[in-house]
């Protein structure tokens, strides 16, 4: 263990110079209480920032807290502790107008497209709805023009706009959900596993549409996925989550070429397994880690900063795995 080599202790992801931080969370925790008894800590002290034009992927296995983190960033659920900042201001202290502005600039794409739109509404109305809420069109003609333009970008025909959600396919529905978010011209798109419910060819099409729109419009993307290959190809930077914590982050190239955390390595090699867990261990990977030591069980590893934008939460920092 190279504790003496530690270059520092990160409390938050350091923004890279030259890019404005749009949305940021600091030491966010979310604890869900069960209806009967007990509770579950879904997100445990996560700090993260998204910069303008960046595509940040959050990867991890099911139950690692990715979706909860994405919803907290989107302002859909309140964290138990910690704060989320939008353009430098805590979202809990935004007034009505600022809150509306936040909901226009930060858009969330859910995992299940078939549940994302009101089943009793026509797709046209669902896409036009954000425009109506934010009064972004002065007339029906202008609304139609915007909806047709944004729908055309995502390959939706007028015939598909006239249908209800149950009458279109999953891929078409996900495109409609994307079109609805894009109608507001957002600055941050939080996509929560937007392709996980689709077939491979549709997945590729949806990802291509998001990337093309991002290149053209310049919005930032927080892409939650458990598809490692996809994250490797599309993202600028990557955060790896386990047990509600970000255990490693860095540029996509660095993370995929030289993972530092034993969990990241095993995730890439496909050797993680649902083994025996020691619930009270400080490190969530303790029970499966080949390099575990006494300190891993007793003391929570801090985030160790390596270089300008690279961090890992492991006491074995510096040792290649």
């Amino acid at each position, binding site marked *: 263990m190279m504790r003496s080599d530690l270059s520092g202790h990160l409390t938050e992801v350091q923004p890279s110079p030259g890019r404005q931080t749009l949305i940021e969370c600091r030491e966010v925790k979310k604890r869900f209480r069960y209806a009967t008894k007990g509770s579950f800590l879904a997100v445990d002290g996560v700090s993260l920032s998204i910069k303008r034009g960046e595509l940040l992927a959050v990867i991890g296995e099911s139950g690692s807290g990715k979706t909860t983190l994405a*919803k907290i960033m*989107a*302002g*859909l659920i309140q964290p138990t502790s910690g704060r989320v900042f939008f353009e430098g201001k805590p979202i809990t202290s935004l007034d009505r107008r600022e*809150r*509306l502005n936040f*909901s*226009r600039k930060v*858009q*969330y794409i*859910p995992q*299940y497209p*078939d*549940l*994302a*739109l*009101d*089943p*009793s*509404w026509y797709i046209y109305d669902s896409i036009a*709805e*954000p425009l109506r*809420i*934010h009064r972004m069109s002065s007339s029906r003609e202008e609304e139609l023009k915007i909806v047709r333009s944004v729908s055309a970008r995502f390959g939706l025909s007028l015939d598909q706009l006239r249908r209800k959600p*149950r009458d279109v396919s999953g891929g078409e529905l996900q495109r409609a*959900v994307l079109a*609805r*978010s894009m109608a*507001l011209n957002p600055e941050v798109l939080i996509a929560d596993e937007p392709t996980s419910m689709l077939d491979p060819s549709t997945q590729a099409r949806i990802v291509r549409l998001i990337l093309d729109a991002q290149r053209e419009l310049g919005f930032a993307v927080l892409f939650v996925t458990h598809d490692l290959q996809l994250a490797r190809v599309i993202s600028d930077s990557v955060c790896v989550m386990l047990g509600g914590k970000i255990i490693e982050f860095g540029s996509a190239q660095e993370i995929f070429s030289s993972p530092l955390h034993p969990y990241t390595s095993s995730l890439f090699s496909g050797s993680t397994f649902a083994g025996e867990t020691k619930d009270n261990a400080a490190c969530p990977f303790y029970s499966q880690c080949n390099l575990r030591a006494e300190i891993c069980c007793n003391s929570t590893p801090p985030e160790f900063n390596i270089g300008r934008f690279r961090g890992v939460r492991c006491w074995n920092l510096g040792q290649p795995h």
Partner: protein
Amino acid sequence: MKSVYSPTKLETAGITAVFAVITMVAISFFPEGWFASTSSPMPYSPPSSTNLLGTNDIGDDVLRVLLMGSRVSLFIGFLGAIVSTVIGTLVGIFAGFMGGIVDEVLGSFTDLFLVVPALPLMIVMAAYLGQSFLNVVLVIGLLWWPTTARLVRARARQIRGSQFVEGLFGIGAGKLYVVIRHVLPNVWGVVLARFVLAVSSSILLEAGLSFIGLGDPQNPSWGMMLHFAMTRGALLHGAWWTFVPPGICISLTSLGFILLGMGMESRYRSRTRSIGEIG
């Protein structure tokens, strides 16, 4: 061409009965000579070609009173159902959508009304408020909402937890907007089915209240016809034509609305099942 609406057998029977009552109400607006004799024969005359359903204790044509009574019974039925459905829907949506302490308080309030025996309470209230057409409507409306509230609450709660509502908050929609534009249209099916069933219940309750003498004597309904038949010796005279026709009308009308409501409810349930997890 694809059929937009094809009623089930239950609904067909219900629709037929409801149409029959509506026809009776419509005929009651015709000039009197069209459907009943305007002459004044003896009391308790049996059915004849002049008086198709005979006459009652004061020599009134029973068919005429029956048709006039259809207006009152149906009007009270609809008005009582409107009041109870509006209260039930508002309480249900508010409790289901707001959740938390609001849900607990309104839920307990609803449970309280559900466990209190409604009919005795209605009798007490009707006796206290007095014999008036509007009082009967008020009593039915104020005491018949809890079942609707329970069902609407369950549906509103399901919709509140759905992903599309979460998405609506994400795009900046307010709670009132979500309730009016999304929750109400999605609970509409259950509200409509409950309304139709409430019409049936209201007609029966009105008949019950009128039968024991708590109805409005100025506007005699079918229940009031039964009350007069009982209190003015029709049973002793063996004048079956004074109580059998209103009895049949009450039974068939409420049965018609029940069948229609049940059909609508099952149609609504199967539709929400086919949509899948709407919420």
